[in-house]
């Protein structure tokens, strides 16, 4: 059964979010994948998938569309990293990914570069918690819900990430010195 936009309030919400927040959501995805093209692809995939679900399922109701989309972006980013990992097992694919990365606009160095590097070195779960905590300003409970983990896990990840970031910054300082 296919329904129209007017018949499904979720589609209307999706349209509003899309028009309002496509760019910020791409920036949000960029934090996880560090590739603008990939970030755009992820955002588009997430919207397309959700729109199609809303179209073919007239009782597909999302209470908080933005939260839903952001969670989907996080999940899609994980998927991207997982597939990238497998792709890089093949030399040919590794070469192609290098070519691809060379064509990507380079994220500029700045005074915060060491912090960015420290965050980039974090394990995925810790990095996700840091991004959601300090970029999205999410509460622990919201982070837990977005990442489908317990609040205890979030605290644990943030704690470990904090220590790791401090250690990394100290190491980078010594290296720079």
């Amino acid at each position: 059964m296919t329904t129209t936009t007017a018949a499904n309030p979720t589609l209307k919400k999706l349209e509003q979010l899309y028009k309002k927040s496509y760019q910020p959501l791409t920036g949000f995805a960029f934090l996880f994948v560090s590739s603008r093209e990939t970030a755009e692809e992820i955002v588009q995939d997430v919207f397309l998938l959700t729109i199609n679900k809303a179209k073919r399922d007239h009782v597909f109701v999302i209470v908080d569309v933005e939260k839903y989309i952001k969670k989907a972006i996080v999940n899609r980013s994980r998927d991207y990293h997982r597939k990238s990992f497998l792709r890089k097992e093949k030399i040919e694919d590794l070469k192609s990914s290098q070519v691809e990365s060379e064509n990507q606009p380079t994220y500029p160095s700045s005074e915060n570069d060491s912090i960015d590097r420290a965050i980039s070195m974090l394990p995925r779960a810790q990095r996700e918690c840091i991004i959601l905590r300090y970029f999205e300003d999410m509460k622990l409970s919201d982070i837990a819900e977005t990442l489908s983990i317990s609040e205890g896990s979030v605290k644990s990840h943030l704690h470990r990430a904090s220590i790791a970031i401090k250690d990394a910054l100290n190491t980078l300082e010594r290296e720079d010195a």
Partner: protein
Amino acid sequence: MSAENILSFELENAIRSTLQTKASFGAKGVVTPSWQAFSQQPAPAATAGGIGSALGTQIAIAVVSIGVIASAIVGSVVYPRTQNKPQQENKPSENQVSSTSSTTTTSLPEETTTTIIPPTSYVRSKTRTTSVPPQLQGTTTTSTTAVNGYYTSWHWLDGEFFSGDFYGLWLKTLTPINGGETIQTFLAYNYSQLEVLWESPRLNPAGHISIISDAEFDLSELVISGVGEVQSTVAVNFTYHATTEIFSIIP
């Protein structure tokens, strides 16, 4: 000082600034495609209200409350882990159950209309039609090689059950609307795609779970044993083994 506040105020601000700068860079120059380009995309072949409605199966899904005693086989290495912590309880409400008759199946259904009470992360209810991929239908296989998969593993994080960050194992309770035997099956659920990937054959009414081996992907390696109670809230203790490969329908 709480764990989340272990960072100094200055460092927290620096992290915020760094992330905002990076996100701004990522969004810079991005042109928002026309909404029409999305809204006019054809929907996938699977449509709601089709065969699933005809089957008329009333299905409610009770999220597995898991007290887990488990060990996971990762490659050839065994990592025993012991957990005994209920994860979550979601009780199906009456208005989330809809159907017309009491058809039950003992094999993989081609399409099933389900009312899904999702994990806490998805606050919504939906009726949907699930198409079981062709690869998951039919006869059994003993292959442990993922047909179209990628590596993942079942694991726990601080007592919570996860599988490769994308998959969850649920216990589904089917209650015929006109009475009759309640049956339970396990299903593998893809959180990111909101898809039911695989459904086990029915469990026996007592909830004793035997070896599940007729799925044509690596959940065929799944071995579950334990006892589940046929209630709206189901507590299950089980032991399972899973390989590090899992079939994925994600292209």
